[in-house]
């Protein structure tokens, strides 16, 4: 799954660092050719059919995915101990949460519309025009699967996914043209069984199992792209639409019966790429619209009756010009973006004043090479952020510099030594600066959250002539985060965001992949040490919540040619803390998932049976009173990432897929 693992012996050719994804897709990120700590995961037949973006991202080292439930439920990612909002999620380079405006629900993104998922754990490429503290998850459409295909999955909890795609390359005259269309419908009742203690740890008489109610999801995604022209002069147009309707189940101890959220998202982008001689460039423009309708007229979510309509828009453009010479590849990137947010109380019809901001991100970068041995990649970028709207006067422009640099050393073709250092940030968002109409009082004095991060690592790949291919990667990182924005409650109904805390995170990431004609294995192991540097004694020197110290991912597959594949996935985390006081510890958890796929012939459909959470783990045993060492009583509690939002047990899915061309 890691792209090196994809390098089958027959296809790896002579340039080992030029992995197969690069050969097929010149714009793909090649981990051996960049200093960045990046994992590239191809979306192909090696993944189980029920995979989603969250599970794919979770298989990369350094990532921690946090979920509110099972398939289709809200999920977001932390990278190297970051907060969820410090991770930028981009779709073909277009940010879905620009400058950490929100955490992105990975369940909204149709995995199978993309060719690969790139996870940058720092030092993101300058063309993304962003410097997020936590890194970047960039979903790349790439060339897409060729041909026409369809798939249908059905399983537990009436979970169903139907996918159809067509990717037809052609030509108009001598001009190459290709069109890609993918539509995916997903639905689930989501009514999995969970353990409920009714919120009374000492009262076992009211414990029992319950079904998660009002957790149904219905989602339709359409991803369309057209490209005209050769790579030297190519126009690309893309539209990605999401319509999602979901019940909001609320806290398990106060389940909601009718609360719902409807989301419409539309991302439209157009880009023109050109190349002439050793110069090339690209101009991309996009518009992002996101509408959310929250209906909680019954007040089940607990903050009174609500019926709101929130609209977020983002219009932006990025242009980059590059020059490629044997010794240097300088580039200039300029990105401009305007974001706007407006909330309307549907019941009263009262709309809040819109909040808007304009972001300008210039950067100058270069790859400076000494032969093929050393590449140094400095990037000097800045963020200039101005706000408008009713409260503009209270917040002046923000100007922040985010320089970074990477170094790549290739002493031999099979080895890449990497080092990166950089300064990253997340500026305060609208709510933090200006407040909302209720619980949050704005603080125009807020400064951005900053991160100073460095990492070193090595990546080795097997020689191409070996029968068994593989790669090994080992890295160490440190991230010092300052001025974390923390909400301080100031009265019964109000709270104020403040730059209160610092954090220190370091860790070791290792990845090993092995691939033979009949066997595949991928192992990722991450050790993260996170320290809360809050001045508050209750938090000082504590582990950051929901960031486990040890995280293991093991994927193993046995293959019988192209006809059959049996896969097993094992994930383990050593337990983490739920809260900043570190009083509540989640127990270590291990999950097994398996799948069996048969594909009798290339033009036949494939059938796959998959079982997630094979051992049906939904509970864990923890101390009843973590504050009293003399109390050795234990209690059962549901397994959760967020307290009150249990995770599901065993899930069985059956999938049938067919396409006109055999999988790669």
């Amino acid at each position, binding site marked *: 799954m890691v792209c090196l693992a994809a390098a089958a012996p027959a296809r790896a050719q002579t340039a080992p660092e030029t992995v197969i994804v690069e050969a097929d897709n010149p714009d793909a990120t090649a981990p051996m050719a960049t200093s960045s700590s990046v994992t590239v995961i191809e979306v192909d037949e090696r993944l189980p059919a029920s995979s989603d973006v969250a599970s794919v991202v979770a298989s990369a080292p350094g990532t921690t995915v946090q979920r509110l439930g099972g398939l289709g439920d809200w999920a977001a990612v932390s990278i190297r101990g970051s907060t969820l909002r410090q991770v930028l999620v981009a779709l073909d380079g277009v940010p879905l949460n620009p400058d950490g405006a929100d955490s992105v629900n990975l369940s909204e993104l149709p995995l199978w519309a993309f060719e690969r998922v790139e996870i940058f754990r720092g030092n993101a490429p300058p063309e993304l025009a962003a410097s997020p503290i936590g890194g970047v998850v960039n979903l790349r459409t790439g060339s897409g699967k060729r041909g026409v295909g369809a798939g249908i999955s059905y399983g537990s909890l009436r979970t169903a996914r139907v996918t159809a795609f067509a990717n037809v390359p052609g030509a108009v005259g001598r001009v190459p043209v290709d069109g890609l269309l993918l539509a995916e419908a997903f639905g689930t009742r989501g009514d999995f069984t969970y353990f409920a203690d009714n919120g009374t740890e000492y009262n076992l008489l009211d414990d029992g199992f319950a079904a998660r109610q009002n957790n149904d999801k219905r989602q339709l995604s359409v991803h369309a792209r057209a490209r005209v022209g050769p790579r030297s002069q190519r126009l690309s147009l893309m539209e990605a639409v999401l319509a999602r309707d979901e019940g909001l189940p609320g806290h398990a*101890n106060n389940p909601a019966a009718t609360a719902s959220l409807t989301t419409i998202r539309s991302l439209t982008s157009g880009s023109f790429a050109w190349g002439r001689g050793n110069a090339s460039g690209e101009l991309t423009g996009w518009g992002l619209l996101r509408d959310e309708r929250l209906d909680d007229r019954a007040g089940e979510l607990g903050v009174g009756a*609500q019926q709101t309509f929130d609209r977020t828009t983002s219009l932006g453009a990025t242009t980059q010009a590059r020059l490629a010479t044997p010794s240097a590849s300088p580039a200039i990137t300029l990105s401009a973006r305007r974001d706007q947010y407006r909330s309307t109380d549907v019941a009263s019809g009262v709309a809040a004043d819109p909040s808007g901001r304009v972001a300008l991100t210039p950067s100058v970068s270069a790859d400076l090479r000494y032969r093929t041995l050393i590449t140094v990649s400095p990037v000097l970028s800045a963020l200039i952020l101005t706000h408008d709207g009713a409260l503009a006067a209270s917040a002046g422009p923000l100007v922040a510099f985010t320089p970074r640099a990477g170094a790549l050393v290739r002493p031999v073709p099979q080895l890449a030594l990497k080092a990166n250092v950089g300064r990253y940030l997340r500026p305060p968002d609208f709510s933090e600066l200006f407040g909302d109409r209720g619980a949050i009082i704005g603080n125009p004095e807020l400064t951005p959250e900053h991160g100073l991060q460095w990492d070193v690592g090595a990546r080795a790949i097997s020689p191409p002539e070996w029968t068994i291919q593989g790669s090994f990667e080992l890295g160490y990182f440190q991230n010092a985060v300052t001025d974390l924005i923390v909400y301080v*409650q100031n009265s019964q*109904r109000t709270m104020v965001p403040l730059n209160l805390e610092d954090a220190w995170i370091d860790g070791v990431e290792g990845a090993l992949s092995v691939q033979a004609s009949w066997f595949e294995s991928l192992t990722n192991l991450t050790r993260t040490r996170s320290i809360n540097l809050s001045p508050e004694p209750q938090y000082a020197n504590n582990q950051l919540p929901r960031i486990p110290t040890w995280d293991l991912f093991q994927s193993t597959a046995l293959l019988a040619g192209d006809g059959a594949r049996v896969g097993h996935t094992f994930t383990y985390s050593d337990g983490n803390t739920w809260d900043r006081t570190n*009083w509540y510890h989640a127990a270590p958890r291990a999950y097994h998932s398996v799948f069996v796929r048969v594909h009798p012939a290339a033009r036949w459909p494939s059938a796959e049976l998959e079982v997630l959470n094979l051992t049906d783990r939904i509970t864990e045993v923890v101390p009843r009173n973590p504050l*009293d060492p003399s109390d050795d009583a234990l209690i059962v509690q549901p397994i959760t990432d967020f307290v009150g939002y249990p995770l599901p047990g065993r899930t069985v899915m059956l999938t049938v897929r067919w396409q006109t061309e055999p999988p790669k």
Partner: protein
Amino acid sequence: MTPLLFAVACAPKVDETALVATGTPGASDAAVLATVSEDYSVGALATVDLETWAVADTLTDISGDPAVVVSGGYVFQLDRFGYDTVRVYTPGAFSEPIAEFALEDLANPHDVVVCDGLAFLSAYGGAELAVHDPRTGHREGGVDLSAFDDGDGSPEPSRLVLAPNGKVYAGLHQFDQGKGWVATGGTIVEVDCATRAVTNSWAAPTPDVYDNPGAPSNVLVHSASTGFYLLDTDSGALSDLLLADATIGASVDGVAAWGDGAVVTTFDDAYGYAVGCVDLTAWTYAEAERSPNYLTGIAANDRGEVWIGARTHWATPGAPNGALVYDGASCEARTDAPITTLLAPFSVAFY
């Protein structure tokens, strides 16, 4: 913006008084405090010895929106918004509750008082006073308050007082939750514990009722929109406005009466907090001092002390947290600095 992750504990609080509220005689030995982390995610019960002020601050874990009440010889620990559970402890024995029970979803318990051996609980999200046996936690019925429902399913019952006449007085806030919690009036109801029926009621805007140890039959009433009143539980007469908040010049947030006076906490439009004193005979107000903290729970004990929870305030995040102690009679501070607990106090009571 996904809203469900931003559901915050935002319901009005309750500040509990102590044994004076129940009429139980005898000197208190300790303060029991519900303390809460700065992010309101977790809490802990803490105690402070009233002789030595020795602190035990991590006795047992509780929710992030707790309250403590002492009544009828029990310590009640309420887990409020979004938790909706109640633990009943024997005073001083906090290793394990003698009973623990859950209320209706979104009940949001605010206060409890023991009357005729049963616990009468006000639940801000319900239309009744729930009645439970404090020894077992079993529900023993309720007091129907639906006649005072303002249309949203709950009259928002909050603070409770047990008067010498053996009846419970409850302040009903009567917010319209469907219209952004706008105030629609307010009522004080009198409840007969034996029949569990409302026997009298008085209109009062958004009322909170408080024990009045100096004149126990005169329940002290504070209205968030007007000021102070007295409810004579013998005659059933509610006084005219005795002291207006406009005269105080700030919003009164908490009240603890002792003798002829009451110590109050106030906040201004900029959420600057202060401690002040109300003369309950002359009905005058004097500000004692401004506070760098966000002031939370307030309660008086039978030693004449008024304890106030002091938490981090956005304007002065470095100010020390803890419990402030004032003299109930003179309104003078007895602490130069807060009595520090690991987590800052949110609610206080005495046993």
